[in-house]
């Protein structure tokens, strides 16, 4: 197990460095200097050179990257935002928890719908529930979350006035408004994975139902409910746990669009805003943080799968 973890961690570090170096060097190779974006396009040559010297932009890319990475690793120092002038570590610390909460609540919502639906339809193949699941899974993977968001806002916020159309009031303003503001964005973020996971649950349960040990249990005369819960569900849900963990990583990408629709102050929206204001320090930091979270979730998915499934060797 230790060897497995060490190997995966080394690989993950390599991936994170490769991605952040790609983004870092690309942003440095863009012809327009950040100096011109900050100081204005008509800034004089001396001011631009001063700016570049101040932020070390005149050094070779590999050296700049080394300095940046060293700062990140040793001091948690991502540099300063070119736009707001604030330390980027502060911006990350403010926005990352929002996105994490959005993703976690979405995943819980997704599992609450998908797992019972998938299990019920596997136990009752060919019934109304089974057809309903088929419909949900096709429509769910085919509906763009951001469009669903627009439509749901139109129905539930503008017409009915039940839920807020956007923004996320902090928890300090009370848990009620906070949760109400999360309903629509979480639903929109969850729908795609609800479709995928419900379908996956169904096929996982069906696969376990065909195993020899289930037939043996039936032959032994164990009760139906005992077989279904202890023999079938326990085994069928093992892959679901790791798929759900990995899906949380993929949600960071879709959260960019959902946070934009609902005006939620998370790290994904900060990344998008930074892209448009050419605040490359913030872009690099956001990509680094999201990639790190993504690889960590992948490792977690692998580890839980192996922990839950003793048949898989480390």
């Amino acid at each position, binding site marked *: 197990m230790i060897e497995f973890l060490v190997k995966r961690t080394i690989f993950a570090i390599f991936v994170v460095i490769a991605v952040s170096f790609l983004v870092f060097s690309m942003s440095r190779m863009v012809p327009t200097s950040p100096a011109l974006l900050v100081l204005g396009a008509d800034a004089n040559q001396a001011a631009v050179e001063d700016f570049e010297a101040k932020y070390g932009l005149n050094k070779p890319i590999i050296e700049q990257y080394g300095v940046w990475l060293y700062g990140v690793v040793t001091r948690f120092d991502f540099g300063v935002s070119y736009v707001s002038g604030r330390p980027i570590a502060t911006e990350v610390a403010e926005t990352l928890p929002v996105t994490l909460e959005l993703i976690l609540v979405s995943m819980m919502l997704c599992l609450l719908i998908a797992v019972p639906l998938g299990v019920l339809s596997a136990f009752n193949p060919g019934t109304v529930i089974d057809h309903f699941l088929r419909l949900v899974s096709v429509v769910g993977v085919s509906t763009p979350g951001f469009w669903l968001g627009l439509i749901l806002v139109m129905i539930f916020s503008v017409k009915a006035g039940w839920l807020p159309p956007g923004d996320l009031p902090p928890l300090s303003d009370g848990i009620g408004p906070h949760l109400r503001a999360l309903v629509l964005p979480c639903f929109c973020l969850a729908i795609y994975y609800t479709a995928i996971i419900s379908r996956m649950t169904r096929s996982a349960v069906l696969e376990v139902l065909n195993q020899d040990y289930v037939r043996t249990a039936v032959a032994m005369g164990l009760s139906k409910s005992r077989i279904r819960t202890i023999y079938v569900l326990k085994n069928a849900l093992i892959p679901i746990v790791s798929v759900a963990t990995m899906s949380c990583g993929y949600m960071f990408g879709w959260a960019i669009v959902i946070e934009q629709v609902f005006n939620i102050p998370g790290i994904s929206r900060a990344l998008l805003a930074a892209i*448009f204001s050419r605040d490359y320090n913030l872009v690099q930091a956001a990509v680094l943080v999201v990639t790190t979270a993504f690889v960590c979730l992948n490792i977690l998915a692998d580890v839980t799968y192996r922990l839950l499934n003793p048949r898989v060797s480390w």
Partner: protein
Amino acid sequence: MNVTAAPSFLGRLRTYPSGIVGALIIGSMVICGILAPILPLKNPLALDLSQRLMPPSFEHLLGTDQAGRDMLSRIVWGSRESLVIAAGAVSFGALFGVTLGLLAGYMNGTVLEIVITRCFDVLFSIPLLVLAIALMGILGTGPTVVGGFIIGIEVKLIILIGLSFTPALGRLSYASALVEVKSDYVRAKRAQGAGWAELTFVEILPNAIPSVIVQATLFIGVAIIVESSLSFVGLGVQPPTPSWGTMLADARGYIASGEWWIAAFPGFAICATVIGFNLLGDVFRDVLDPRAGAISSFV
């Protein structure tokens, strides 16, 4: 003995009604997209402020947008962008992924195999959507000049979205190639003196194709959603070129004021098209590749 011929591919396809629905949806979208210049549609770019924000009517079947442009015409012209970029991205991913996957499978046991499969592993462990958005933001949505070639936004989208499909399609064909390369018929061909190119592309490739077609069909649906999402946030197709994503971005301003048709119809177009590809892909799986389990495709 009475031998019944196995039903043809099309014959088996006919027994799946959902596949027919999917094929009809995609077929009509493609035909409308191709025929857009000669269909009796209004000019999708013509501004007419006297006609702005008109609800659906006989004159404008799906209404008009904030600049008085005909929605139906813009949706039909938008399908060209979406379909070309999605199909292009999946083709790019398939070309790249299948070639590398087959090569890795054929070079079983060599360093090349390890290098290629490691590359797939790396691509799998990157949040590719986030990376695509960041790179698109850095490169900009305008044309980029690379070594004398001018790369437009459509090509950038095709490459960035296509890259995210590469590892899945690559692993799929790698798995097929691994099985086939050890099979008797490939060994027999090799003994007859066939070279690597013939073995890989003439003998092994046809056996890898069915599962790739299944997955690629499903990926086109994903690509349409990714492209419209990127266009929606302003990092894809740029206005005034009509595209479903940018139409929805325009619609954001009219959610509160009740002009529902601006947001509803482009989204229906996306949904319908993606449902079409998903229905067809599911049926392809049942017909072409019944052994294949669901391969997760999250992007």
